[in-house]
């Protein structure tokens, strides 16, 4: 049994009378790629926001590598090694592609106000190393040529990639991707999934990703959790999920009918 990277216990998030996520239990082993799927409004992103500290859960606990991180601030959670991307792209729009990645490197530069203001040698050294690292990352995903461009001038698919690269710059061990394939056609989605697969191997990552097109995640995920109205209605390997009558009823049934 590999090390458990992320687990939750009875995670519940209520907004007034609405229970967005209820009794959510998940366990992700090291180097796994786990998918969190479900129809729109099922509570997937809420679950993400609770895990990354954007929301404090109404009840329940979140554990990262065995340590309780419930209620930690988002930046503290990132420091511990959990990075995330956003469903609607949230790039720093007035910064260049390279600067976006460099912001991701802030943790490794970690210079105080005055040492960076005065460009002290300690700071210069770290900043130069971060530059090199950021350029190498961009090179790996084929964005090196765009380094000097404004981030929002990139085509949509590349912006998505840039968001992932920016998250990688924080040196995460666990990467959370919120609908990385949103707005992509099936071909692009499949390419993205194989990209995610290579990332996992290259950076020794554990990945949790949200997706609502089930076909896309089938090939890439080791495990799937299916949410509907905040309730986990099924979990297991992709093949058994596909056959699960509850899942078909709640989710695939509608989708298939829509497609056929």
């Amino acid at each position, binding site marked *: 049994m590999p090390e458990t990277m992320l687990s939750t216990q009875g995670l519940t998030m209520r907004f007034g009378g609405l229970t967005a996520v209820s009794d959510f239990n998940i366990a992700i082993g090291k180097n796994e790629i786990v998918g969190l799927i479900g129809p729109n409004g099922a509570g997937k992103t809420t679950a993400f926001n609770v895990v990354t500290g954007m929301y404090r859960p109404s009840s329940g606990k979140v554990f990262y590598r065995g340590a309780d991180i419930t209620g930690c601030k988002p*930046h503290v959670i990132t420091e511990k090694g959990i990075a995330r991307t956003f469903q609607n792209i949230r790039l720093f729009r007035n910064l260049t592609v390279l600067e976006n990645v460099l912001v991701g490197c802030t*943790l490794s530069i970690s*210079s105080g*106000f005055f040492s960076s*203001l005065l460009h002290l040698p300690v700071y210069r050294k770290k*900043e130069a190393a971060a530059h090199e690292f950021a350029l190498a990352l961009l090179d790996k995903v084929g964005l090196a040529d765009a380094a000097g461009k404004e981030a929002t001038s990139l085509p949509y698919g590349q912006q998505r990639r840039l968001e992932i690269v920016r998250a990688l710059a924080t040196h995460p061990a666990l990467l959370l991707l919120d609908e990385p394939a949103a707005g992509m056609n099936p071909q692009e989605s499949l390419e993205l999934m194989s990209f995610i697969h290579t990332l996992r191997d290259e950076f020794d990552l554990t990945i949790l990703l949200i997706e609502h097109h089930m076909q896309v995640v089938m090939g890439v995920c080791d495990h799937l959790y299916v949410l509907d109205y905040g309730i986990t209605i099924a979990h297991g390997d992709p093949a058994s999920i596909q056959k699960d009558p509850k899942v078909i009823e709640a989710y695939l049934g509608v989708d298939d009918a829509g497609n056929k």
Partner: protein
Amino acid sequence: MKIKRNQLYTVVALCVIVLLIVLADHVFDSFILRVFNLCAIYIILALSLNLLNGFTGLFSLGHAGFMAVGAYVSALLTMSPQLKEMNYFLTPIVPVLKNVTLPFFPALLIAGLVSALVGLLIGAPILRLKDDYLAIATLGFSEIIRVLITNAQPITNGAQGLKGLPRFSTTYTVWAVAGAMVLFMVLLMRSSYGRTMKAVRDDDLAAEAMGINVFKVKVTAFTASSFWAGVGGALLGHMITTIDPKMFTFSLTFNIVLIVVLGGTGSITGSVLAAILVTVLMEALRFLDEPMNFLFIHTAGTPGLRMVVFSILLMLVVIFRQKGIMGGKEFSWDSVAAFRARHARRARSGARDDAGDGGNSGNSKVGGNANGEGGPHA
């Protein structure tokens, strides 16, 4: 080759500025000299507000409050005991401050630091607010500071204000501090900390997800901005040599906000150019406040009429050029060259069509970055 030419331009421009500052005392009459030095003070104030509004995305309307703190601290630390006795004829000054007299530069530094401390204390609770709420809270605190100063008679001499401050704000002093401020901003914005501030401005949720302690960055920016506002306020006090609480009302904050918006939020050179433009116009348009008798127009003279010009200017900027003169970019020689080349091309094609659209002689500085103008729908 091109880089060398640009460097040459920069060196020449710097020499011209230094020469102007050196000659100012000898060439300008006292009125022009005062406007010239006021430009420097407004550069400091505009940049310190731009640090918040433009670079960290915190809309603050509390600048006058921090300027007041700086001005009063510096005044109280530098005035001689006799001068204090003359000023405090209604209520005697608190004994602690009675005999304190420091040289100007330590006093200026302390003024900035006290103002920064006040900024830190105010910023810590209110920087949890965002956007308009933050603006209103800062405005409120600025008024609180003013009311406190008005009522703390044994310390500040209340509504009577302080008169006869030593005239320390010489041409060299104000321009040296303005130079330091520009250097501070350039260095900061080229560092990782400046990048972090811009990231917080563009998207604080994403910045937080990058492991940035967003709250700490905001408080740091607010404190640094307060420091420079305090320094600017102190310089202003020692230039006018009289300070009273009524000087530091919202209209003073408004002037600085106007400069920042006109120059372009997030542009250092924009703030510098707009500070000079607004300061000069503020004096040049003074004739509007006086009775006018021009051809068939007769007015009795309305104090504050020139502010209408600024209001119209602000509206035009908001409608036609949301990002201000510099549009969030910095001035560079290349952009001037690009601007001129584009206009020359347009003039040539215009001549060919016999349209002669002219109007291309305008100030190249203003349009210098037109090529880099981002979408206004930001």
